Protein backbone atom coordinates (compact mmCIF):
# COMPACT_ATOMS: atom_id res chain seq x y z
CA UNK A 1 0.00 0.00 0.00
CA UNK A 2 2.78 2.43 0.99
CA UNK A 3 4.83 1.48 -2.07
CA UNK A 4 1.80 2.01 -4.25
CA UNK A 5 1.22 5.44 -2.71
CA UNK A 6 4.85 6.48 -3.19
CA UNK A 7 4.70 5.33 -6.79
CA UNK A 8 1.60 7.45 -7.41
CA UNK A 9 3.24 10.49 -5.84
CA UNK A 10 6.27 9.98 -8.05
CA UNK A 11 4.11 9.75 -11.15
CA UNK A 12 2.43 13.06 -10.35
CA UNK A 13 5.55 14.84 -9.11
CA UNK A 14 5.36 17.20 -12.07
CA UNK A 15 2.16 18.61 -10.60
CA UNK A 16 3.82 19.40 -7.25
CA UNK A 17 6.99 20.84 -8.74
CA UNK A 18 5.71 24.38 -9.44
CA UNK A 19 4.71 24.65 -5.76
CA UNK A 20 8.00 23.52 -4.25
CA UNK A 21 10.45 24.83 -6.81
CA UNK A 22 10.62 28.56 -7.47
CA UNK A 23 12.75 29.65 -10.37
CA UNK A 24 14.03 33.07 -11.36
CA UNK A 25 11.33 33.23 -14.02
CA UNK A 26 8.65 33.29 -11.33
CA UNK A 27 10.09 36.35 -9.57
CA UNK A 28 10.72 38.07 -12.87
CA UNK A 29 7.14 37.47 -14.03
CA UNK A 30 5.66 38.59 -10.71
CA UNK A 31 7.91 41.68 -10.70
CA UNK A 32 6.93 42.77 -14.21
CA UNK A 33 3.25 42.15 -13.53
CA UNK A 34 3.38 44.09 -10.27
CA UNK A 35 4.96 47.04 -12.06
CA UNK A 36 2.19 47.04 -14.66
CA UNK A 37 -0.44 46.78 -11.93
CA UNK A 38 1.15 49.61 -9.93
CA UNK A 39 1.15 51.84 -12.99
CA UNK A 40 -2.52 51.00 -13.64
CA UNK A 41 -3.32 51.73 -9.98
CA UNK A 42 -1.57 55.09 -10.29
CA UNK A 43 -3.61 55.91 -13.40
CA UNK A 44 -6.79 54.94 -11.58
CA UNK A 45 -5.97 57.16 -8.59
CA UNK A 46 -5.30 59.95 -11.07
CA UNK A 47 -8.71 59.30 -12.65
CA UNK A 48 -10.43 59.47 -9.25
CA UNK A 49 -8.56 62.73 -8.52
CA UNK A 50 -9.22 64.48 -11.84
CA UNK A 51 -12.54 62.81 -12.68
CA UNK A 52 -13.73 60.94 -15.76
CA UNK A 53 -12.47 63.79 -17.96
CA UNK A 54 -9.19 61.88 -18.23
CA UNK A 55 -10.98 59.10 -20.12
CA UNK A 56 -12.12 59.17 -23.73
CA UNK A 57 -15.79 58.98 -22.71
CA UNK A 58 -17.87 61.91 -23.91
CA UNK A 59 -21.34 62.89 -25.03
CA UNK A 60 -23.03 60.84 -26.43
CA UNK A 61 -20.56 57.94 -25.88
CA UNK A 62 -20.85 57.70 -22.10
CA UNK A 63 -19.66 54.11 -21.81
CA UNK A 64 -16.21 53.15 -23.04
CA UNK A 65 -13.50 50.61 -22.36
CA UNK A 66 -14.59 49.94 -18.79
CA UNK A 67 -18.00 48.62 -19.73
CA UNK A 68 -16.59 46.85 -22.80
CA UNK A 69 -14.04 45.13 -20.54
CA UNK A 70 -16.67 44.40 -17.91
CA UNK A 71 -18.77 42.46 -20.44
CA UNK A 72 -15.64 40.87 -21.94
CA UNK A 73 -14.17 39.65 -18.63
CA UNK A 74 -17.49 38.35 -17.33
CA UNK A 75 -17.79 36.49 -20.63
CA UNK A 76 -14.36 34.92 -20.21
CA UNK A 77 -15.46 33.74 -16.77
CA UNK A 78 -17.79 31.30 -18.48
CA UNK A 79 -14.72 29.29 -19.36
CA UNK A 80 -14.48 27.85 -15.98
CA UNK A 81 -17.31 26.84 -13.84
CA UNK A 82 -19.80 26.39 -16.65
CA UNK A 83 -17.53 24.26 -18.84
CA UNK A 84 -16.23 22.33 -15.86
CA UNK A 85 -19.77 21.68 -14.60
CA UNK A 86 -20.98 20.54 -18.02
CA UNK A 87 -18.01 18.19 -18.43
CA UNK A 88 -18.47 16.76 -14.93
CA UNK A 89 -22.20 16.36 -15.41
CA UNK A 90 -21.75 14.56 -18.72
CA UNK A 91 -19.07 12.35 -17.09
CA UNK A 92 -16.55 13.28 -19.78
CA UNK A 93 -13.47 11.45 -18.54
CA UNK A 94 -11.08 13.71 -20.46
CA UNK A 95 -12.15 16.58 -18.21
CA UNK A 96 -9.87 15.56 -15.32
CA UNK A 97 -6.75 17.64 -16.13
CA UNK A 98 -8.84 20.57 -17.37
CA UNK A 99 -11.49 21.35 -14.76
CA UNK A 100 -9.34 23.14 -12.19
CA UNK A 101 -7.62 25.34 -14.74
CA UNK A 102 -11.04 26.33 -15.98
CA UNK A 103 -12.46 26.99 -12.51
CA UNK A 104 -9.52 29.22 -11.55
CA UNK A 105 -10.13 31.38 -14.62
CA UNK A 106 -13.70 31.98 -13.48
CA UNK A 107 -12.82 32.98 -9.93
CA UNK A 108 -10.10 35.45 -10.95
CA UNK A 109 -11.77 36.94 -14.00
CA UNK A 110 -15.12 37.42 -12.24
CA UNK A 111 -13.43 39.45 -9.54
CA UNK A 112 -11.69 41.60 -12.17
CA UNK A 113 -14.81 42.01 -14.33
CA UNK A 114 -16.99 42.81 -11.34
CA UNK A 115 -14.75 45.72 -10.42
CA UNK A 116 -15.06 47.42 -13.80
CA UNK A 117 -18.44 49.10 -13.23
CA UNK A 118 -16.91 50.65 -10.08
CA UNK A 119 -13.92 51.87 -12.11
CA UNK A 120 -16.45 53.34 -14.54
CA UNK A 121 -17.90 55.47 -11.75
CA UNK A 122 -16.40 58.92 -11.48
CA UNK A 123 -17.21 58.78 -7.79
CA UNK A 124 -16.47 55.18 -6.71
CA UNK A 125 -17.79 55.88 -3.21
CA UNK A 126 -21.24 56.14 -4.74
CA UNK A 127 -21.27 52.38 -5.28
CA UNK A 128 -22.39 52.25 -1.65
CA UNK A 129 -25.69 53.79 -2.74
CA UNK A 130 -26.79 50.38 -4.03
CA UNK A 131 -26.91 49.16 -0.45
CA UNK A 132 -29.24 51.88 0.72
CA UNK A 133 -31.10 53.13 -2.31
CA UNK A 134 -30.79 50.41 -4.96
CA UNK A 135 -33.76 49.71 -7.19
CA UNK A 136 -34.24 46.00 -7.78
CA UNK A 137 -36.21 46.55 -10.98
CA UNK A 138 -33.07 47.99 -12.59
CA UNK A 139 -31.11 45.45 -14.69
CA UNK A 140 -27.94 46.97 -13.23
CA UNK A 141 -28.91 45.66 -9.82
CA UNK A 142 -29.85 42.27 -11.27
CA UNK A 143 -26.25 42.21 -12.44
CA UNK A 144 -24.89 42.94 -8.99
CA UNK A 145 -27.01 40.14 -7.56
CA UNK A 146 -26.27 37.54 -10.23
CA UNK A 147 -22.54 38.27 -10.41
CA UNK A 148 -22.26 38.03 -6.63
CA UNK A 149 -24.15 34.72 -6.73
CA UNK A 150 -21.95 33.42 -9.55
CA UNK A 151 -18.77 34.53 -7.84
CA UNK A 152 -19.81 32.85 -4.59
CA UNK A 153 -20.87 29.66 -6.37
CA UNK A 154 -17.71 29.58 -8.51
CA UNK A 155 -15.43 30.09 -5.52
CA UNK A 156 -17.17 27.30 -3.61
CA UNK A 157 -17.06 25.13 -6.73
CA UNK A 158 -13.34 25.79 -7.10
CA UNK A 159 -12.58 25.25 -3.42
CA UNK A 160 -14.44 22.03 -2.65
CA UNK A 161 -12.74 19.84 -5.28
CA UNK A 162 -9.40 21.30 -4.13
CA UNK A 163 -9.72 19.99 -0.57
CA UNK A 164 -8.19 16.52 -1.16
CA UNK A 165 -5.24 18.12 -2.97
CA UNK A 166 -4.76 20.70 -0.22
CA UNK A 167 -4.67 17.80 2.27
CA UNK A 168 -1.95 16.16 0.16
CA UNK A 169 0.11 19.36 0.39
CA UNK A 170 -0.54 19.48 4.14
CA UNK A 171 0.70 15.89 4.51
CA UNK A 172 3.85 16.66 2.55
CA UNK A 173 4.86 19.22 5.18
CA UNK A 174 6.81 22.40 4.58
CA UNK A 175 6.52 26.03 5.54
CA UNK A 176 2.85 26.34 4.65
CA UNK A 177 1.61 23.24 6.47
CA UNK A 178 -0.63 25.27 8.81
CA UNK A 179 -2.12 27.19 5.93
CA UNK A 180 -2.94 23.94 4.12
CA UNK A 181 -4.16 22.39 7.38
CA UNK A 182 -6.60 25.28 7.79
CA UNK A 183 -7.86 24.94 4.22
CA UNK A 184 -8.09 21.14 4.17
CA UNK A 185 -10.96 21.08 6.70
CA UNK A 186 -9.69 17.91 8.37
CA UNK A 187 -9.74 15.84 5.19
CA UNK A 188 -8.36 12.35 5.80
CA UNK A 189 -9.75 10.67 2.71
CA UNK A 190 -12.19 8.42 4.57
CA UNK A 191 -15.09 6.86 2.71
CA UNK A 192 -17.55 9.04 4.57
CA UNK A 193 -15.65 12.23 3.65
CA UNK A 194 -15.44 11.14 0.01
CA UNK A 195 -19.18 10.54 -0.02
CA UNK A 196 -19.89 13.96 1.50
CA UNK A 197 -17.56 15.73 -0.92
CA UNK A 198 -18.94 13.98 -3.99
CA UNK A 199 -22.51 14.76 -2.94
CA UNK A 200 -21.66 18.45 -2.45
CA UNK A 201 -19.86 18.66 -5.82
CA UNK A 202 -22.82 16.98 -7.53
CA UNK A 203 -25.29 19.48 -6.07
CA UNK A 204 -23.01 22.40 -6.95
CA UNK A 205 -22.42 21.39 -10.56
CA UNK A 206 -26.16 21.24 -11.17
CA UNK A 207 -26.68 24.58 -9.42
CA UNK A 208 -23.85 26.42 -11.09
CA UNK A 209 -25.03 25.93 -14.69
CA UNK A 210 -28.25 27.98 -14.44
CA UNK A 211 -26.42 30.61 -12.37
CA UNK A 212 -23.71 30.94 -15.05
CA UNK A 213 -26.28 31.19 -17.83
CA UNK A 214 -28.27 33.76 -15.85
CA UNK A 215 -25.20 35.98 -15.32
CA UNK A 216 -24.55 36.66 -18.96
CA UNK A 217 -28.23 36.81 -19.81
CA UNK A 218 -28.64 39.48 -17.16
CA UNK A 219 -25.61 41.36 -18.49
CA UNK A 220 -27.25 41.43 -21.91
CA UNK A 221 -30.36 42.91 -20.26
CA UNK A 222 -28.38 46.05 -19.37
CA UNK A 223 -28.40 46.72 -23.09
CA UNK A 224 -31.51 45.00 -24.40
CA UNK A 225 -33.89 46.44 -21.80
CA UNK A 226 -33.25 49.91 -23.22
CA UNK A 227 -34.84 51.19 -26.44
CA UNK A 228 -31.41 52.10 -27.80
CA UNK A 229 -30.95 51.14 -31.49
CA UNK A 230 -28.73 48.10 -31.82
CA UNK A 231 -29.39 46.98 -28.26
CA UNK A 232 -33.13 46.42 -28.03
CA UNK A 233 -33.08 42.81 -29.19
CA UNK A 234 -34.81 39.69 -27.91
CA UNK A 235 -31.92 37.40 -28.84
CA UNK A 236 -29.35 39.36 -26.81
CA UNK A 237 -29.62 36.97 -23.83
CA UNK A 238 -28.67 33.75 -25.66
CA UNK A 239 -26.35 35.72 -27.98
CA UNK A 240 -24.34 36.92 -24.98
CA UNK A 241 -24.30 33.46 -23.41
CA UNK A 242 -23.03 31.89 -26.64
CA UNK A 243 -20.37 34.60 -26.98
CA UNK A 244 -19.34 34.13 -23.36
CA UNK A 245 -18.89 30.38 -23.67
CA UNK A 246 -17.09 30.92 -26.99
CA UNK A 247 -14.55 33.39 -25.55
CA UNK A 248 -14.32 31.31 -22.37
CA UNK A 249 -13.26 28.16 -24.22
CA UNK A 250 -10.68 30.17 -26.19
CA UNK A 251 -9.25 31.68 -22.99
CA UNK A 252 -9.12 28.24 -21.38
CA UNK A 253 -7.21 26.84 -24.36
CA UNK A 254 -4.67 29.69 -24.18
CA UNK A 255 -4.13 29.14 -20.45
CA UNK A 256 -3.81 25.37 -20.94
CA UNK A 257 -1.24 25.78 -23.71
CA UNK A 258 0.76 28.33 -21.69
CA UNK A 259 0.89 26.20 -18.52
CA UNK A 260 1.60 23.05 -20.49
CA UNK A 261 4.65 24.75 -21.94
CA UNK A 262 5.87 26.50 -18.77
CA UNK A 263 5.29 23.63 -16.30
CA UNK A 264 6.04 20.81 -18.78
CA UNK A 265 2.63 19.23 -18.39
CA UNK A 266 2.70 17.42 -21.73
CA UNK A 267 1.90 14.11 -20.01
CA UNK A 268 -1.30 15.53 -18.57
CA UNK A 269 -2.53 17.96 -21.19
CA UNK A 270 -2.37 15.86 -24.31
CA UNK A 271 -3.21 16.71 -27.88
CA UNK A 272 -6.53 14.90 -27.48
CA UNK A 273 -7.66 17.40 -24.78
CA UNK A 274 -6.93 20.30 -27.10
CA UNK A 275 -8.65 18.61 -30.00
CA UNK A 276 -11.82 17.93 -28.02
CA UNK A 277 -11.93 21.48 -26.67
CA UNK A 278 -11.14 22.99 -30.04
CA UNK A 279 -14.02 21.03 -31.57
CA UNK A 280 -16.23 22.72 -28.99
CA UNK A 281 -14.64 26.03 -29.99
CA UNK A 282 -15.47 25.37 -33.63
CA UNK A 283 -19.10 24.56 -32.77
CA UNK A 284 -19.35 27.76 -30.73
CA UNK A 285 -17.83 29.73 -33.62
CA UNK A 286 -20.56 28.49 -35.95
CA UNK A 287 -23.22 29.16 -33.34
CA UNK A 288 -21.84 32.67 -32.77
CA UNK A 289 -21.97 33.36 -36.50
CA UNK A 290 -25.56 32.12 -36.67
CA UNK A 291 -26.60 34.51 -33.89
CA UNK A 292 -24.67 37.42 -35.40
CA UNK A 293 -26.17 36.79 -38.81
CA UNK A 294 -29.72 36.57 -37.40
CA UNK A 295 -29.22 39.73 -35.34
CA UNK A 296 -28.04 41.88 -38.25
CA UNK A 297 -30.32 40.35 -40.90
CA UNK A 298 -33.38 41.18 -38.76
CA UNK A 299 -32.13 44.74 -38.24
CA UNK A 300 -31.35 45.32 -41.92
CA UNK A 301 -34.64 43.81 -43.11
CA UNK A 302 -36.62 46.06 -40.77
CA UNK A 303 -34.57 49.07 -42.00
CA UNK A 304 -35.69 51.23 -39.09
CA UNK A 305 -33.75 54.50 -39.66
CA UNK A 306 -32.05 54.72 -36.26
CA UNK A 307 -31.22 51.00 -36.33
CA UNK A 308 -29.72 51.45 -39.80
CA UNK A 309 -27.54 54.32 -38.54
CA UNK A 310 -25.95 51.94 -36.05
CA UNK A 311 -25.62 49.11 -38.56
CA UNK A 312 -24.01 51.36 -41.18
CA UNK A 313 -21.70 52.81 -38.52
CA UNK A 314 -20.44 49.26 -38.07
CA UNK A 315 -20.57 48.01 -41.65
CA UNK A 316 -19.13 50.92 -43.59
CA UNK A 317 -18.60 53.71 -41.05
CA UNK A 318 -15.88 54.44 -38.50
CA UNK A 319 -16.29 51.03 -36.83
CA UNK A 320 -16.08 48.99 -40.06
CA UNK A 321 -12.49 48.01 -39.33
CA UNK A 322 -13.50 46.64 -35.92
CA UNK A 323 -16.66 44.97 -37.19
CA UNK A 324 -15.06 43.12 -40.09
CA UNK A 325 -12.01 42.23 -37.99
CA UNK A 326 -14.43 40.72 -35.51
CA UNK A 327 -15.97 38.57 -38.25
CA UNK A 328 -12.53 37.46 -39.46
CA UNK A 329 -11.24 36.71 -35.93
CA UNK A 330 -14.37 35.02 -34.61
CA UNK A 331 -15.51 33.12 -37.63
CA UNK A 332 -13.25 32.92 -40.67
CA UNK A 333 -9.93 32.14 -38.94
CA UNK A 334 -11.25 29.65 -36.33
CA UNK A 335 -13.39 27.83 -38.89
CA UNK A 336 -10.49 27.49 -41.33
CA UNK A 337 -7.97 26.47 -38.64
CA UNK A 338 -10.20 24.13 -36.69
CA UNK A 339 -11.96 22.43 -39.59
CA UNK A 340 -8.82 20.93 -41.12
CA UNK A 341 -6.84 18.25 -39.33
CA UNK A 342 -3.66 19.67 -40.82
CA UNK A 343 -4.06 22.95 -38.92
CA UNK A 344 -5.53 21.44 -35.76
CA UNK A 345 -2.18 21.27 -34.00
CA UNK A 346 -1.34 22.90 -30.65
CA UNK A 347 0.07 25.93 -32.48
CA UNK A 348 -2.94 26.14 -34.77
CA UNK A 349 -5.35 25.87 -31.83
CA UNK A 350 -3.40 28.55 -29.94
CA UNK A 351 -3.58 30.84 -32.96
CA UNK A 352 -7.33 30.29 -33.38
CA UNK A 353 -7.92 30.80 -29.64
CA UNK A 354 -6.00 34.09 -29.57
CA UNK A 355 -7.97 35.38 -32.56
CA UNK A 356 -11.24 34.38 -30.86
CA UNK A 357 -10.34 36.23 -27.64
CA UNK A 358 -9.44 39.35 -29.64
CA UNK A 359 -12.52 38.92 -31.81
CA UNK A 360 -14.82 38.59 -28.83
CA UNK A 361 -13.33 41.70 -27.26
CA UNK A 362 -14.03 43.49 -30.55
CA UNK A 363 -17.57 42.14 -30.45
CA UNK A 364 -18.12 43.75 -27.04
CA UNK A 365 -16.65 46.99 -28.42
CA UNK A 366 -18.99 46.79 -31.42
CA UNK A 367 -22.00 46.30 -29.17
CA UNK A 368 -21.27 49.07 -26.66
CA UNK A 369 -19.86 51.99 -28.65
CA UNK A 370 -21.78 52.27 -31.98
CA UNK A 371 -25.20 52.27 -30.29
CA UNK A 372 -24.15 55.04 -27.93
CA UNK A 373 -22.51 56.97 -30.78
CA UNK A 374 -25.81 56.98 -32.70
CA UNK A 375 -28.55 57.96 -30.25
CA UNK A 376 -32.21 58.29 -31.22
CA UNK A 377 -32.20 61.98 -30.40
CA UNK A 378 -31.28 64.31 -33.22
CA UNK A 379 -27.66 64.62 -32.25
CA UNK A 380 -24.71 64.18 -34.51
CA UNK A 381 -22.90 60.87 -34.65
CA UNK A 382 -20.36 60.52 -31.84
CA UNK A 383 -16.91 59.01 -31.70
CA UNK A 384 -14.88 57.42 -28.95
CA UNK A 385 -11.10 57.25 -28.57
CA UNK A 386 -9.85 55.53 -25.43
CA UNK A 387 -7.31 57.52 -23.43
CA UNK A 388 -4.02 56.34 -21.92
CA UNK A 389 -5.83 55.90 -18.59
CA UNK A 390 -8.29 53.45 -20.11
CA UNK A 391 -5.58 51.53 -21.96
CA UNK A 392 -3.49 51.36 -18.77
CA UNK A 393 -6.38 49.98 -16.76
CA UNK A 394 -7.13 47.44 -19.49
CA UNK A 395 -3.53 46.20 -19.52
CA UNK A 396 -3.55 46.36 -15.70
CA UNK A 397 -6.63 44.14 -15.57
CA UNK A 398 -4.95 41.57 -17.81
CA UNK A 399 -1.85 41.74 -15.58
CA UNK A 400 -4.00 41.14 -12.49
CA UNK A 401 -5.45 38.07 -14.18
CA UNK A 402 -2.02 36.66 -15.10
CA UNK A 403 -0.62 37.46 -11.64
CA UNK A 404 -3.62 35.84 -9.95
CA UNK A 405 -3.14 32.74 -12.04
CA UNK A 406 0.62 32.59 -11.47
CA UNK A 407 0.18 33.00 -7.71
CA UNK A 408 -2.54 30.37 -7.60
CA UNK A 409 -0.26 27.90 -9.36
CA UNK A 410 2.46 28.71 -6.81
CA UNK A 411 0.30 27.60 -3.88
CA UNK A 412 -2.01 24.96 -5.32
CA UNK A 413 -1.78 22.24 -7.99
CA UNK A 414 -3.09 23.61 -11.24
CA UNK A 415 -4.31 20.14 -12.19
CA UNK A 416 -6.51 18.18 -9.81
CA UNK A 417 -4.21 15.42 -8.54
CA UNK A 418 -6.85 13.39 -6.73
CA UNK A 419 -9.11 13.40 -9.76
CA UNK A 420 -6.24 12.17 -11.93
CA UNK A 421 -5.58 9.38 -9.41
CA UNK A 422 -9.27 8.54 -9.29
CA UNK A 423 -9.28 8.44 -13.08
CA UNK A 424 -6.38 5.98 -13.12
CA UNK A 425 -8.03 3.75 -10.53
CA UNK A 426 -11.68 3.81 -11.52
CA UNK A 427 -12.31 5.41 -14.90
CA UNK A 428 -11.45 2.50 -17.16
CA UNK A 429 -13.79 0.16 -15.31
CA UNK A 430 -16.50 2.79 -15.12
CA UNK A 431 -16.28 3.71 -18.80
CA UNK A 432 -16.29 0.04 -19.78
CA UNK A 433 -19.40 -0.51 -17.69
CA UNK A 434 -21.04 2.59 -19.19
CA UNK A 435 -20.24 1.57 -22.76
CA UNK A 436 -21.60 -1.91 -22.12
CA UNK A 437 -24.81 -0.35 -20.82
CA UNK A 438 -25.23 1.55 -24.14
CA UNK A 439 -24.80 -1.57 -26.28
CA UNK A 440 -27.82 -3.59 -27.40
CA UNK A 441 -28.81 -6.23 -24.89
CA UNK A 442 -31.46 -7.08 -22.37
CA UNK A 443 -32.98 -3.84 -21.08
CA UNK A 444 -32.79 -3.03 -17.38
CA UNK A 445 -36.24 -3.01 -15.84
CA UNK A 446 -36.35 0.01 -13.58
CA UNK A 447 -40.06 0.68 -14.16
Amino acid at each position, binding site marked *: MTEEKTKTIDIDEALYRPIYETGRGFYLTVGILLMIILFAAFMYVRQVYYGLGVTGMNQPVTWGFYIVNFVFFIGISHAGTLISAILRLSKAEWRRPITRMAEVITAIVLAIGGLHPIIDLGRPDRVLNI*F*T*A*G*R*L*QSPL*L*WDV*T*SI*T*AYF*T*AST*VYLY*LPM*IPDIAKLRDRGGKLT*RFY*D*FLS*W*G*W*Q*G*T*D*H*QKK*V*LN*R*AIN*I*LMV*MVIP*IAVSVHTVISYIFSMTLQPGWHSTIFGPYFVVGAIFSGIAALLIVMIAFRKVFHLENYLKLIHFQYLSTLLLIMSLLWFYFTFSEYLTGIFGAEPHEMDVILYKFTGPYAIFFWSMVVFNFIIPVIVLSFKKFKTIKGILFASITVVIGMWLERLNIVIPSLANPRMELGSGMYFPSLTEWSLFVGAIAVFVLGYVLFSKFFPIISIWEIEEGREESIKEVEKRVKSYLPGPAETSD
Partner: protein
Amino acid sequence: MNSTENTSRDKIIFTAQLASISLIWIFVIAIAIWILNLISVSVDLNDAPGISIAISLVAIPVFFTLASILTYVFVGFHKNSKSDLNNTLGD
Protein backbone atom coordinates in the same frame (compact mmCIF):
# COMPACT_ATOMS: atom_id res chain seq x y z
CA MET B 1 6.64 18.65 18.58
CA ASN B 2 4.77 17.11 21.54
CA SER B 3 1.14 16.04 21.58
CA THR B 4 0.00 19.02 23.74
CA GLU B 5 1.37 21.45 21.17
CA ASN B 6 -0.28 19.43 18.42
CA THR B 7 -3.63 19.48 20.18
CA SER B 8 -3.53 23.22 20.81
CA ARG B 9 -2.52 23.81 17.17
CA ASP B 10 -5.42 21.62 16.03
CA LYS B 11 -7.78 23.59 18.24
CA ILE B 12 -6.60 26.92 16.82
CA ILE B 13 -7.01 25.67 13.27
CA PHE B 14 -10.44 24.23 14.01
CA THR B 15 -11.52 27.54 15.57
CA ALA B 16 -10.26 29.43 12.50
CA GLN B 17 -12.20 27.05 10.26
CA LEU B 18 -15.33 27.56 12.33
CA ALA B 19 -14.81 31.32 12.09
CA SER B 20 -14.54 31.10 8.28
CA ILE B 21 -17.81 29.16 8.09
CA SER B 22 -19.43 31.74 10.36
CA LEU B 23 -18.17 34.51 8.07
CA ILE B 24 -19.82 32.84 5.09
CA TRP B 25 -23.12 32.77 6.98
CA ILE B 26 -22.70 36.42 7.96
CA PHE B 27 -22.08 37.24 4.28
CA VAL B 28 -25.16 35.33 3.14
CA ILE B 29 -27.40 36.78 5.85
CA ALA B 30 -26.13 40.27 5.03
CA ILE B 31 -27.06 39.77 1.37
CA ALA B 32 -30.51 38.54 2.36
CA ILE B 33 -31.02 41.57 4.62
CA TRP B 34 -29.84 43.88 1.84
CA ILE B 35 -32.27 42.35 -0.67
CA LEU B 36 -35.13 42.54 1.86
CA ASN B 37 -34.25 46.20 2.44
CA LEU B 38 -34.46 46.84 -1.30
CA ILE B 39 -37.91 45.23 -1.36
CA SER B 40 -39.03 47.45 1.50
CA VAL B 41 -37.70 50.52 -0.37
CA SER B 42 -39.59 49.49 -3.50
CA VAL B 43 -42.80 48.93 -1.48
CA ASP B 44 -42.42 52.35 0.21
CA LEU B 45 -41.93 54.05 -3.14
CA ASN B 46 -44.49 51.84 -4.90
CA ASP B 47 -41.66 51.16 -7.33
CA ALA B 48 -42.49 47.77 -8.95
CA PRO B 49 -42.30 45.71 -5.74
CA GLY B 50 -43.51 42.61 -7.60
CA ILE B 51 -40.30 42.40 -9.64
CA SER B 52 -38.18 42.94 -6.56
CA ILE B 53 -39.97 40.14 -4.72
CA ALA B 54 -39.61 37.79 -7.72
CA ILE B 55 -35.86 38.41 -7.94
CA SER B 56 -35.34 37.98 -4.23
CA LEU B 57 -37.29 34.70 -4.28
CA VAL B 58 -34.61 33.33 -6.61
CA ALA B 59 -31.52 35.09 -5.24
CA ILE B 60 -31.89 34.54 -1.49
CA PRO B 61 -32.32 30.72 -1.68
CA VAL B 62 -29.27 30.48 -3.99
CA PHE B 63 -27.03 32.14 -1.41
CA PHE B 64 -28.47 30.09 1.45
CA THR B 65 -28.00 26.87 -0.51
CA LEU B 66 -24.35 27.71 -1.17
CA ALA B 67 -23.69 28.41 2.50
CA SER B 68 -25.59 25.24 3.45
CA ILE B 69 -23.46 23.14 1.09
CA LEU B 70 -20.27 24.48 2.65
CA THR B 71 -21.60 23.85 6.14
CA TYR B 72 -22.71 20.36 5.16
CA VAL B 73 -19.22 19.56 3.87
CA PHE B 74 -17.53 21.02 6.94
CA VAL B 75 -19.77 19.17 9.39
CA GLY B 76 -19.64 16.03 7.25
CA PHE B 77 -15.85 16.01 7.26
CA HIS B 78 -15.62 16.32 11.02
CA LYS B 79 -18.47 13.99 11.85
CA ASN B 80 -17.26 10.39 12.33
CA SER B 81 -13.89 11.37 10.86
CA LYS B 82 -11.86 9.81 13.68
CA SER B 83 -13.77 6.52 13.81
CA ASP B 84 -13.72 6.26 10.01
CA LEU B 85 -9.99 6.96 9.97
CA ASN B 86 -9.42 4.15 12.47
CA ASN B 87 -11.48 1.82 10.29
CA THR B 88 -9.53 2.83 7.18
CA LEU B 89 -6.20 2.36 8.91
CA GLY B 90 -7.41 -1.00 10.20
CA ASP B 91 -7.92 -2.15 6.62
